[in-house]
């Protein structure tokens, strides 16, 4: 597991409180469960448009939107990451 290449989770949002909270939730789950993901906070509007994201915050795994427009719960992220 340690040496497996890390996949990318992007947390998209222009830097509002909800987006920071979402980043914190995702980061927390990844660290606690020691999952092979790199979590990145993305504030670029171009990226949001490219992905077709219209409501922030958005959680994106490998370029695919999994949650958007609300702050996800830790359990929800855990379940999503287990399946991803």
């Amino acid at each position: 597991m340690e040496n497996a290449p890390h996949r990318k989770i992007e947390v998209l949002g222009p830097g509002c409180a909800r987006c920071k909270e979402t980043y914190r939730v995702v980061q927390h789950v990844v660290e606690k469960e020691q999952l092979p993901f790199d979590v990145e906070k993305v504030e670029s509007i171009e990226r949001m448009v490219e992905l077709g994201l219209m409501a922030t915050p958005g959680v994106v795994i490998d370029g695919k939107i999994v949650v958007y427009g609300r702050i996800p719960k830790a359990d929800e992220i855990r379940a999503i990451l287990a399946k991803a």
Partner: protein
Amino acid sequence: MSPWAAALLGLGAVACWLALYLSLSRISGWLTYSVLGLAEGKHVSSAVEFLVFEVPKVLLLLTAVVFAVGIVRSYFTPERTRRILAGTRESVGTVLAALLGVVTPFCSCSAVPLFLGFVTAGVPLGVTFSFLISAPMVNEVALVLLFGLFGWKVAAIYMGTGLVIAMASGWTIGRLGMEDQLEPWVRKVRAGDGEEPIVAIGWRDRIGFGLEALREIVGKVWPYVVAGIAVGAAIHGWVPTNFMAKFMGKDVWWGVPLVVLIGIPMYSNAAGIIPVVQALLGKGAALGTVLAFMMSVISISTPEIIILRKVLRPKLIAVFVGVVTVGILLVGFLFNALL
């Protein structure tokens, strides 16, 4: 939980809510004069009674409406709204956009991605602005507070004029043909397909969304409500009744432009501003002036303009701010003249 138990629980919650709401005035009087032993007719007692009555009342109303709106919003995703708007004629779209602005989930930090999502999918610029103006202005928290503090007439006037300003501004911007005033990179982007995630949503999820909205919105705004009402209570008890008439009365013609000028750059959510508004009204400020102040504070703000600058050229921003400002001024003057 079985559906029956859930329904029973729901009914119980509604009954508790009603019982509390209806007995609030008795409870607050009892608390102020019996428990705290304050003398009737004093400034401090009237301020305290106001506070212990208004805070729970507004919070109760807020809880009910935010929950209900959370459920309603689970039916309106931004994608669905966009699809509706992209497929209608511009005239109908402008009206529809303002109405959808009320029920589509919207947070001012999503304004830009949403704006781009609409424009790049072929929603006309005017229609997009109609949505963008109505969404923050006609907001459920504002409506609840207005209803709770001033009754349904003021709430309805606010909602009606807010929608009209959004539609009229959107229509005007549409007529001006300012598509060339988008930043060049915006015109180049292709819309992401923005497919709606296919998730089956049941009643249980919708109630979950309602509760989530409750936690997120009420959990966040209650300190503002309390602080705002406290300011209101202070003014209520101590400032002379007609104090505000001098600055914000009906006959002070410069009152409306002055408050709009102060309000436009300010940023506050509805919860923070309305109790202050109530205090102003109670002390002789005219309704038109106060509505104009409130609309200008919650509809446009400096942070929103800074964010929008990333996608709009200064000229279009100026037109946007100008058109909305004129609309708010007209509402202010109109109500001062009529009422």
